[in-house]
């Protein structure tokens, strides 16, 4: 059963071939047996999951089951779960148990899905390798053949690795600069970052509020559509959520792609991309041509400014968002503070890891008197230019296609000493967050035996078209079905 997709599991449950209790048991057993190799979970909620599975079976017996009723899944440990530890991968919140659900969490609960636990992540979602977690790095299920341990990507590395290892069929994730798409690509699964505002951010611990977006991870595009059906929609508790109707994202999966206008941004097929990577991406694009797509080259002229603008705006917002972690009301507090200042200083020095502190410092600097105009204001201007690039591009094409990351999964520790090299992991994903448009990562082949992703970028609120394009691709390819080892 653990190799089946959410859609398939839903059908098995519906047919009565298996109960949610049995299914939940199977996945819990797999996590117990296998996860010591990956460290993809921070918390496994076995008792709660079994109780929820039993309730789901009862609901089904009462004739009140939906698609998700009784289907196991997991949450990235950034979504608050009422009564269950929510750490955000940080020592700061290692003891934090929220008394409320994130809207995303509540939506899955209402849908009857069975949450098995909370997945590992880079601390406060800051990282591209899942090496900054207080709970230890996550190991990619791929590329372990010669004894090496590779990163799963980040920050949603735990969700991606757990799905790739078949410990779970689907998991929530978040994407601020590529944190869904890059780990999805490196782990050979399918992930979607929706349009900014499509999914409520309430209860999703903030990294950079204007960039953060909750999204989906699973093996297939269809499963991503099933997840988005549960997650999308306006939320009165998040005034930045979009008040737009939510389509049934599964309804258009089978639309033919004939005439789909695909743009290839020339800036994303540059020197940073290895010839092998480029070849795989171009092969994937050829599949689309076979399906009837019309491909042309387009330009995103300000693409080269995205990383610089992002690394001003995101840390600036983070520096304020993380001020609430002060040891006063919840979370970590240092031992025996001498006075208020000592409590603040040591709580934050001890509670945050290196990458988080680096970004708080960068952000604080960028907002400081005398530097604000040169950094923050300038970055916001660049951001508007980047948005305009996408708006212009979508006048001529329906979707953009590109690589997700410059290279496949790298070996743990390889980039930790050089933050800038690490930041360049997100060179093809970051502009999407600055513009706020939706984008997916779809398995598109292998380089050196490691999975790589095709990025499909859509116009604002055009998730249905992305899912349709990804699903059709998955009807003619089987990259997303490959198993590690």
């Amino acid at each position, binding site marked *: 059963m653990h190799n089946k997709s959410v859609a398939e599991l839903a059908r098995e449950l519906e047919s009565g071939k298996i109960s949610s209790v049995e299914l939940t048991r199977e996945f819990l057993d797999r996590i117990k047996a296998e996860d010591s190799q990956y460290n993809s979970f921070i918390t496994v909620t076995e008792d709660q999951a079994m109780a929820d599975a039993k309730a789901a079976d009862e609901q089904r017996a009462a004739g009140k089951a939906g698609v998700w009723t009784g289907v196991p899944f997991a949450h990235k440990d950034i979504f608050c779960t009422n009564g269950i530890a929510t750490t955000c991968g940080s020592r700061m919140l290692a003891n934090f148990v929220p008394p409320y659900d994130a809207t995303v969490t509540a939506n899955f609960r209402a849908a009857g899905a069975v949450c098995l636990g909370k997945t590992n992540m880079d601390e406060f979602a800051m990282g591209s390798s899942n090496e900054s977690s207080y709970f230890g790095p996550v190991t990619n299920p791929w590329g372990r053949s010669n004894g090496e341990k590779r990163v799963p990507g980040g920050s949603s590395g735990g969700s991606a690795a757990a799905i790739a290892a078949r410990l779970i069929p689907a998991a929530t994730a978040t994407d601020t600069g590529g944190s869904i798409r890059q780990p999805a690509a490196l782990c050979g699964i399918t992930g979607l970052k929706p349009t900014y505002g499509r999914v409520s951010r309430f209860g999703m611990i903030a990294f950079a509020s204007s960039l953060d977006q909750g999204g989906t991870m699973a093996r297939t595009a269809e499963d991503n559509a099933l997840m988005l059906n549960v997650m999308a929609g306006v939320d009165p508790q998040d005034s930045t959520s979009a008040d737009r109707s939510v389509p049934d994202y599964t309804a258009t999966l089978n639309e033919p792609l004939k005439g789909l206008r695909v743009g290839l941004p020339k800036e994303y097929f540059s020197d940073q991309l290895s010839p092998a990577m480029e070849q795989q991406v171009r092969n994937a694009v050829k599949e689309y041509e076979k399906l009837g797509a019309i491909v042309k080259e387009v330009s995103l002229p300000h693409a080269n400014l995205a990383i610089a603008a992002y690394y001003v705006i995101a840390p600036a*917002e983070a520096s304020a968002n993380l001020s609430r972690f002060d040891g006063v009301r919840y979370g970590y507090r240092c031992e025996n503070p001498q006075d208020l200042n000592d409590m603040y200083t040591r709580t934050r020095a001890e509670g945050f890891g290196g990458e988080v502190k680096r970004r708080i410092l960068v952000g604080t600097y960028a907002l*400081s008197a005398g530097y*604000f105009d040169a950094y923050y204001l300038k970055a916001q201007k660049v951001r508007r230019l980047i948005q305009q690039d996408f708006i212009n591009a979508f006048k001529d094409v329906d979707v953009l296609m590109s690589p997700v990351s410059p290279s496949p999964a790298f070996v743990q520790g390889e980039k930790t000493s050089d933050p800038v090299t690490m930041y360049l992991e997100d060179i093809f994903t970051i502009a999407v967050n600055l513009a706020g448009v939706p984008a997916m990562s779809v398995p598109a082949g292998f380089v050196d035996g490691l999975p790589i992703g095709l990025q499909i970028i859509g116009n604002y609120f055009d998730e249905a078209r992305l899912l349709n394009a990804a699903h059709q691709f998955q009807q003619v390819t089987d990259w997303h079905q490959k198993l590690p080892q």
Partner: protein
Amino acid sequence: MQWDIVIGLEIHVQLATKTKIFSGSSTAFGAEPNTQASAVDLAMPGTLPVPNEQAFRYAVMFGLAVNADIGRRSVFDRKNYFYPDSPKGYQTTQLDHPIVGPGFVDIDLADGSRKRVRIHHAHLEEDAGKSLHEDFEGMTGIDLNRAGTPLIEIVTEPDLNNAEEAVAFAKKLHSLVSSLGICDGDMSQGSLRFDVNISLKPKGSDTLGTRTETKNLNSFRFMEQAIAHEVDRQMDILEDGGRIVQETRLYNGDRDESRSMRSKEEANDYRYFPCPDLLPVVIDDAFIQSARDLLPELPEARKERFKEQYGLNEYDARLLSDDAGLAAFFEETAKHGKDAKLAANWVLGEFTARMNAEDKTVARAPITGVQLGQLVARIADNTVSSSGAKKVFDALWSGKSTHADDVIEAQGLKQVSDSGALEQMVDEVLAEMPDQVAQYQQETDPKKQKKMLGGFMGPLMKASKGQGNPKLFTEILLKKLNG
């Protein structure tokens, strides 16, 4: 050396919304600590602010009342600083795009002149919580009930030139926000808090001096004292050849002392930037109209109406119109009292004196406008004399009775106004006082005559057991004596 005093005010006004500016928690004062603090107010991870529409409407009402431009695109910013009563580590406030733009308020001064005070802007923001230093040995308690209470911070231009003007402005503003119903006006609970910026410059100079800011004054009296204190302090320094340090100061009203809180160098770099959790709020014509529709009659307009409708003079009309509660009380009194001027005299005289003496407010006064009006009506129609009326007022105030007529009846305070009976009494008294009558009639100075008239009133009042209508007695006396 002669100095010009330059004063600007910053006023924090708590808006009387039921719930907080970014959460659904109650704003009621006086609850047990932290019982009105939700996950949003506690800045729990992942929580987000949702703006309270009523706070915006109240701010727009204020803007309309001070003749201000309304910011059509209202943007919130984060003001970053660490303090335990600021749970997010930043205050959500407005910097570059406040909801209320430039406006003005006219104030009336004691010498009868009028002065225009310009409002620089007013912005919406959230209040902080409170630190409780006294209750915990060696530790500080935090009460976040107040955290997130909506405020407007009103910033004036430095248009005020002495303590009297500053206090007149402060009182006017207090009256304005109370009349608008956007603030409960209770200064003892911190509903209005004043920061005073003061600088001195040589008389006539165009260059402003270095200013200090004295923070958190919560009574008019302390404000007046703090200004006097700070002006003296700065004058002493300047006349000794010293320089004023730009700083924030705290004033202790009980001791009439002030101390430096922090200097400009120690001031925080607040690192303001637009709050990414809140989209810009667009204020459209329909919203402004919805606020305009809620505007009650403002003191200025009410004063003019009182002059017109009740024939009051400027002074009485202003005293009666500044406070919405007193104005409503007066109108009830006038309505039931038939005579508006007499009603005004009683409201501003006996009623106000009694309130002040017993430290009561209009809302808590033991007598209603209707009751006072019923008494005024009996004075107006000569049923009771003014001295009798005071006794009636006492009985109503003390709660012994609820209707003037009952008191007049019970205490026998009804005046005799039957002219036949009164004339008989006058005849009898004059017959007993022939010498005085003769004296009066020989006197040619009308002033002395008037004084002598009083000599007959005592015996007359005695004869009538105090119930003769003095006015009628006087009329009859004059008729008889002048033959």
